[in-house]
């Protein structure tokens, strides 16, 4: 399983052609990437990195962030609650320490995920990153449910989304992917605002609000109370929002939310995704990525279909 894509290509020469996908300005060898904060170089010990079309790093903020008090995790009946709070070393430490390691070790496009507390701060971060080589794109995280007054504060207003994206798109030719929140009343409106601001793609969904309580004591399982809910339980929500967003905009969609298997991936492609990401699944199954690519590849080969042929063609 370690070399899933090589095996697949050996068996059928046009496997790589069928798996090829485009995300905005990026050419992806496979439509599979990873959700920010759920995957790092440690995971690449477990399988052949050729399974992945791109790598999305953990979200970086301008200044270092301590993160939220523990307990930060709780596994529910159908998925995971997390309250990490964007713990990260800050932009300068990222550029000095982490980026050189990524540049040396990654053999795929690197998408840097960033979050900020104002449009000016987002812009400052992008300007700094523009001066760095080895970055293929940005994920603009305006949807983290675990930090106050940033992230999600942007993601819920279409007017602010437009202003932010408009400002950032003028600063870069690299991939500009806006990560949207599911915790909004109208995803189509927000997606259109991102497109109007000249985003090259959108990513959805970030985690939805969730909570767990010990019924015996009444105590919240998570220190901060409300957390971000991810994994298998949010898949129907993510599918619906992918479908709605795909109907609203022409820019490509990187979909995520409860994708564990190749069957899940296909559902999202039918719903309108150009690429998909594994998040919580990386914790549940260390081989989720190669298994997904193997299964997806075999399905497409068997039917001689490419991703672009089925994308958005959900039958209703």
């Amino acid at each position: 399983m370690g070399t899933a894509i090589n095996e697949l290509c050996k068996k059928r020469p046009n496997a790589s052609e069928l798996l090829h996908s485009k995300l905005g300005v990026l050419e992806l060898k496979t439509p599979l990437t990873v959700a920010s904060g759920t995957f790092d170089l440690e995971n690449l010990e477990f399988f052949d990195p050729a399974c992945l079309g791109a790598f999305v790093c953990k979200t970086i903020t301008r200044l270092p962030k301590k993160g939220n008090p523990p307990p930060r995790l709780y596994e529910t009946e159908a998925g995971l609650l997390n309250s990490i709070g964007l713990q990260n070393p800050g932009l300068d430490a990222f550029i000095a320490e982490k980026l050189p390691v990524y540049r040396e070790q990654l053999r795929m496009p690197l998408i840097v995920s960033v979050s900020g507390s104002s449009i000016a701060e987002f812009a400052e971060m992008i300007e700094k990153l523009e001066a760095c080589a080895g970055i293929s794109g940005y994920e603009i995280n305006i949807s983290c449910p675990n930090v106050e007054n940033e992230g999600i504060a942007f993601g819920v207003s279409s007017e602010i989304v437009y202003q932010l994206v408009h400002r950032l798109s003028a600063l870069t030719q690299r991939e500009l992917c806006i990560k949207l929140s599911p915790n909004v009343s109208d995803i189509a409106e927000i997606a259109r605002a991102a497109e109007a601001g000249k985003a090259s793609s959108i990513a959805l969904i970030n985690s939805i609000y969730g909570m767990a309580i010990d019924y015996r004591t009444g105590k919240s399982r998570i220190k901060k109370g409300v957390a971000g809910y991810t994994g298998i339980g949010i898949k129907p929500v993510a599918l619906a929002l992918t479908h709605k967003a795909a109907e609203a905009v022409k820019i490509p969609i990187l979909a995520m939310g409860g994708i564990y298997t190749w069957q899940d991936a296909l559902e999202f492609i039918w719903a309108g995704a150009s690429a998909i990401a594994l998040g919580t699944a990386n914790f549940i199954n260390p081989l989720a990525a190669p298994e997904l690519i193997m299964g997806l590849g075999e399905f497409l080969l068997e039917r001689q279909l490419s991703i672009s042929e089925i994308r958005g063609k959900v039958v209703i």
Partner: protein
Amino acid sequence: MNNPQYRQRAIQLREELSDDYFLLWIWDEALGAAGKAGQFYDVRALASLKDAQNAGKIPKLFKPISIYDNQGGRIGFMIKKVGEGTAALSKLRAGDLLELIGPAGNGFPIFQGKRILLVSGGIGYPPLWYLQKELINHNQVYWMHGGARQGDVFPCDEIWTEDGSIGRHGRVCGGMRENIAKYDVNLIYSCGPMPMLASAAEISQELGIEHYVSLESYMACGIGVCHGCAVPIGSKDDWDYHRVCKEGPVFKAEEVRWELL
């Protein structure tokens, strides 16, 4: 082998200990050579992933289990049945497959020529079993272990139970000062429930004795990626969240910000 590895290995032997406790043994020379006392593996019964996938059920996370024993490629895990994940592990028999990610974490620092006190509570016992094997030839070691009841105690020098059913009656930390004085202790290692470790840390700090604790935490990735298991580490005025799975699970007791946990 710097980063944790993913393996599927057959269980060679299973041993029953007491009501809720059992041992699983696997064989892997490369992993055995890489593992150190105080490190752990993220463990899961392979069947629980495959059964879930086949039955359309929801697969669950790996569970961090510390290394109980590690000699010549024979690796042992001592496990207590507490929840769904460990219940699935408790059903495993010789020949069944175990999924493993590891060895993970930092492990205990090893010294020589010290007068050592080991303090464990409940399922905090296993990592100290491996540790005492590493220490015993070059140090003076005295081991106290406490549990709720008779079924929670295992071989050591001094036993405590909360219900008084065997050994000394009370909590294991209650006997620490006495043994520290008696054996002129100058190094402590401990592992057990958080309140026990906090009490032990208070005693060592008051007496100014070097003390290493092995912490337990809820984990998602178990390899340093998700930051879900973080605990506050540092001085009172300058601390950060460190990952139990990467910078830990062993920390200096004085550096854990117990008041924030």
